[in-house]
Every structure is written in structure tokens, then in C-alpha cells.
């Protein structure tokens, strides 16, 4: 795995309701670095600012102050249009609530990022099928989201996140709405992406066990990083052997 910096956030501040009496700061100068190929988790109490940080990392929101480069791209200077392209090509999102597009099939959902990337119809259908096969959802590809279980929806969402072979996957509590067995299945898919394809992954979780499975664990408290520890995860193979 390379030593290249994937995420570089320096002294990030984020405030809401700026210029109103209700103005308050959620992130108070966060420094956060992730190298290419790392699997990092962010933990912390509810309201500590994890999602707020993740949204800044995902270029869905802009920090109030601070510097941020993603895979060499200076985010504060990028225009809205450039951020769209960046999200499309470099970032794969996995949400707690799946966020599949209703009324369209699993296949079309996975094709969507490729459509926005301008890929041809045949090419994106082929790739979408391949990705769905990887997450074990090929036999359900013509089903619509409301015909799928939570775990199935999240697997489709992961396939969709992988659509344009992104540099980084950002997952905000991807197992938060699933039972532990299904959560386990989803985690294994992340491990596979990390170990077999060398994907950089940032995961937010409330589960101490799942965070232990990552290489680095970042603890956020009241909008500042309180500490960092190393996970105990030995890799998928070790677990299978045990």
C-alpha cells in the first residue's frame, strides 16, 4: 500500500447559523490525515460532529475555515461544478439510510454514477452487473428498493459506491440500521474491498467491535479529535482460519 496522502484536513472549523444569534461551532479545528489504502474508523458520542466531518470529507459541505485537499485536489478552491465531478469520480458514499433512488431498479441505481460520468449504456450495464455480482445481489438486480431488505439495499448501495472505481469510500454508520449478522456481512464486504482492491475507506460507527476491525480508530469528542488508536483486526483470512 502506497504512502501517498489521500485526505489531508488541517485546522477544519465548521459553524452553523453563521451571522445569527444561534451561531455555534461544531468542529473546532480538526486535523485529520488518511493515507491511500488505509481503513480508518471515526467513533464518538452522538452529536460529537462525526457526520459533520464526514460531509466535509465527502465534499458535500464546505468547512467554515481550514484547509482540505483530497487526493491532491484543493477543495476550498474548487467550484461547485468541480466538486460534482470529484464526488462522481473519486468518492463512493454509503449512507445509514441507503438512499437508493425509489422506483428504479437496483441495476439502474448502480448505473447512476456511471451515467453522470458519461459512460455508454452497454458499458455501464455490464459494469453494474459485475458490481452487483460482487456483493451477491445479481439475482435481485431488477428489483426496486422497496422490494429489498435493509441488508440487500445496503449491498446495492455499496455496489453503487464502487461504480466509478472511487479513490475513497465514505460510510456513515452503514450498519446502523441493520442487525448484527447483516452488519457483519456488510463489514466483510468493506474488508474485501480494502484488502483485495486496496480501497481507502473511512467508516463512522457506534459499534466498538466494528471499529476495532479497522486499522486506525479516531475518537471525536465535542468537535475535536481526542485520540487515536490502532485496531486489532488481523485481516479476513485470519478470521476465516479461526
Amino acid at each position: 500500500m502506497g504512502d501517498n496522502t489521500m485526505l489531508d484536513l488541517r485546522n477544519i472549523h465548521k459553524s452553523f447559523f453563521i451571522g445569527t444569534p444561534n451561531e455555534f461551532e461544531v468542529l473546532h479545528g480538526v486535523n485529520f490525515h488518511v493515507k491511500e489504502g488505509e481503513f480508518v474508523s471515526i467513533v464518538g458520542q452522538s452529536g460529537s460532529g462525526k457526520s459533520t466531518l464526514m460531509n466535509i470529507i465527502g465534499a458535500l459541505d464546505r468547512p467554515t475555515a481550514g484547509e482540505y485537499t483530497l487526493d491532491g485536489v484543493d477543495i476550498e478552491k474548487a467550484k461547485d461544478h468541480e466538486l460534482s465531478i470529484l464526488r462522481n469520480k473519486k468518492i463512493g458514499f454509503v449512507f445509514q439510510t441507503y438512499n437508493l433512488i425509489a422506483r428504479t431498479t437496483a441495476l439502474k441505481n448502480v448505473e447512476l454514477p456511471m451515467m453522470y460520468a458519461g459512460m455508454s449504456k452497454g458499458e455501464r450495464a455490464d459494469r453494474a452487473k459485475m458490481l452487483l455480482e460482487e456483493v451477491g445481489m445479481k439475482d435481485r438486480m431488477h428489483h426496486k428498493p422497496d422490494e429489498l431488505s435493509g441488508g440487500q439495499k445496503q449491498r446495492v448501495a455499496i455496489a453503487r459506491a464502487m461504480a466509478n472505481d472511487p479513490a475513497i469510500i465514505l460510510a456513515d454508520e452503514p450498519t446502523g440500521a441493520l442487525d448484527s449478522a447483516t452488519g457483519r456481512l456488510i463489514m466483510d464486504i468493506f474488508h474485501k474491498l480494502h484488502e483485495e482492491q486496496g480501497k481507502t475507506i473511512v467508516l463512522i460507527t457506534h459499534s466498538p467491535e466494528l471499529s476495532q476491525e479497522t486499522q486506525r480508530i479516531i475518537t471525536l469528542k465535542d468537535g475535536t479529535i481526542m485520540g487515536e488508536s490502532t485496531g486489532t483486526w488481523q485481516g479476513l483470512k485470519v478470521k476465516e482460519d479461526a
Partner: protein
Amino acid sequence: MLITENILVALAGLKANIMRSLLTMLGIIIGIASVIAIMTVGNSITIMVNQTMQDLGANNLQMGVMQKSQNNESSDTGMNYGEGYVRELEDSDLISQEMLDDFTTEYKDNIQYVLLTQDIATRWDNAKVSKGNTSANVNLQGLNADALKFKNLKMISGRQFIGHDYKEAKRTCVVSDKLVDRLFDGEYDSVIGKEIEVTVSGNYYKYYVVGVYEYVQESFSFGASDNPTTDIYVPYETARIQTHNQNKGIQYCDLVTTIDTNNDEFATQVRDFFNIKYYSRNDTYEVVCISMTSMMDSMNSMISMIQLALSVIAAISLVVGGIGVMNIMLVSITERTKEIGTRKALGATNGSIRLQFITESVVICLIGGIIGILAGVGLGTLAVKFMGYEAAVSVQSIVIAVGFSMAIGVFFGYYPANKAAKLNPIDALRYE
């Protein structure tokens, strides 16, 4: 590529909310349907009127003695309406045979026929020829030699009128084969010389049949029937006597011009000829002359004006429909805020979001437009059929309607689509 995808998404959305979609489209449907129906009716009437006028002869001029238009003398003194008493038409005001002869000699290169007609019974008079229990509906009309020639009748038996029929105002007539079929068992030869009696609102007119012509159905008639109202022709002079038209002159006549004549220019020449030479000292009456083509033109432009005015009114309902579409698009965008956020997270640019929603609104309007066109063509055709004419759908108006409904889609879809496009991705994603 993105477009087809967007259309599919839009259709899926419409299908998921069929009732709402239909109600949204209703304004567009009603608007387009009324415009198309108006256009269809107008178009059909235009064609019918033109056809009828064509039948009457496109290279006809209508000439007649009419009261002088007032504006020459009175307009400078201001309001003169109902100023007074208008002298009644007298024999000396009419066009005499001498004047007509003078005129036809002067313009013999321009004039093919001078048509003189005298109606005794038109189609509204319910004139009948009866024999036993059966009867045939007829129009009864007196024609001069030119007018009869101009009819270009195809004779089945007998003859047309000759000199003394006119000069002595003989009670002779020419009837249609349909009448003979109905009343005389189709014996076209033996009917010649027989006397028939025409009843016109309590009056009786008797004639001797001298000829039978082949009836040709009018291009626009009130439905085909086996008992059509056919014409009986009698000599012009006979008709004048029978209608007690004792005038010594002619008030109206039609002129059929030669092919090389420019009718509009000739109409002016006719007016000038009579008014300078014979009517310059007439205080009340003058000769007017208009060409059938200019009459057709003004008729057509009048119909177009009415059509346009009605269409503008109908188009207002299109604007109302468009506002309805805009309203439902705003609702739909609010409902789908999270979807918009997700699409943006997946890399949709503002432009592609805008395109998606404009496509959706265009699809709504286009489907509404197509339903409206079908309904409009149906209604228009029904109305025209009800009036007894042939329906002529205006293809042009359909093309315009399709274009117009798409334009409404773009116009009223733009604001909501732009609103969606400009949503901040994280605000959209967090929307509950």
C-alpha cells in the same frame, strides 16, 4: 443519453401517481383540446366556404346597385347617422338593358357571361312537386341564356331553352333526372311535354317540361339522400313575371370574366364605367362590383380572425394549466429533496438535475398535449359533422400544439427545476 434516462424516470414518476398526473395535465388537456377543436371547426368551415364559392365560380364578379356610401359627403360634418330619409329605389336607378349592352360591348374581351337569375323558391322555401303520394323537393330558379349556359348542364333528354322561351316568357322548365326518377319512374323521354305543378308556400306554378338534366351532388350538402333537393330552371323572364318583379331594370347580376382578366382590377373598371357614365348625377345610388376572389379573401381572413380570437381565449387556459404543472413540479421537488441530495452526492451536476426536472415537466405537458390533441380532434370533428360538413383537421395546428405544450413544459418547468438544481447537496441530503 441522459435525456432518454430522464424520460424513463419521468414516466415512472407519472405512473406512480396516475391520478395526480392526470389532474395536473387537465389544464393542458383542456387548453390544447379547445384550441385544436376551434382550429378544426374553423378549418373545415374555411374549406367549405371556399369550395362553395369555387362552385359558384372563382372568376365571378358580383355587380349591383346599392345606396351610396355616406362618407363622401357627410364625414366632414361629423355624426350623421340616421340623418334622414333615404329615397327608395326607382326604375331609373336600376341598370337598364341599354346600359348593360353598352357595357358588354365596351368590355367584350373581358366578359364571358352576364348571369341574370331570379329565385322563385330557394332551399328554405320547401318547394315541392307532387304526384300522387310522392313528392320531390325542389328549388325554383329563373335563368337567362348566359346563366343557363354557365350551369353547363348535361342533358339526358329534351332541350334547353331557346329564343322564344325567353322572349315570350314561356312557362317551360328543365328538371333533374332525380325528379323524374322519383315522380315519373325514370321515363326521361316520355316526361318531355308533360305539365308539372310546383307548390311554393301555398302558391302553384305550372310549367311544361322541355328537358331533363343529370343532377350532380354539391360538394358540400347536408348529407347524401335519395331524395335530394334538386333545381328546376325556368326562363329568366318567366320567373320575373311570376314573382311580380316589375322593375324595368336590373339590380343585381353576376359577371363571369375571361381567363385573362384580373378580377380585382376589372371590378374597379366596372364600377368606374357605370358610376362615371350613368350614375354621376344619381344622388342616392351607385353601382358596386366586387370580385369573388376578394370576397373569398376577406371571408377567409374574417374566419381566421375569429379563430385567432377564440384560440387566444383558449390559450389562457393553457397558461393556467402551465401554472398547475409548475405547482406540481414544486411539490414533487420538495418530496424528492432527499433524492436530489443523493443524486448530487453521486456526482449529478446542477445542470443534470435541472435537465431532469425540465424533462419531467416537458413530459407531463407533452402527454397532456397529445391527449388534448386527440380530444380536440374528436370534439372538432364531432362538431363539424354535427353541422353537416366534412371535417378537415389542421395538421399545422397539431404541430403547433405539440410545440406549444413542450414550450409550456420548458417555461413552467424551468423555475422549479432551477430551484432543485441549486439545492445545497448536504441540505438536500439531510432533508426529512
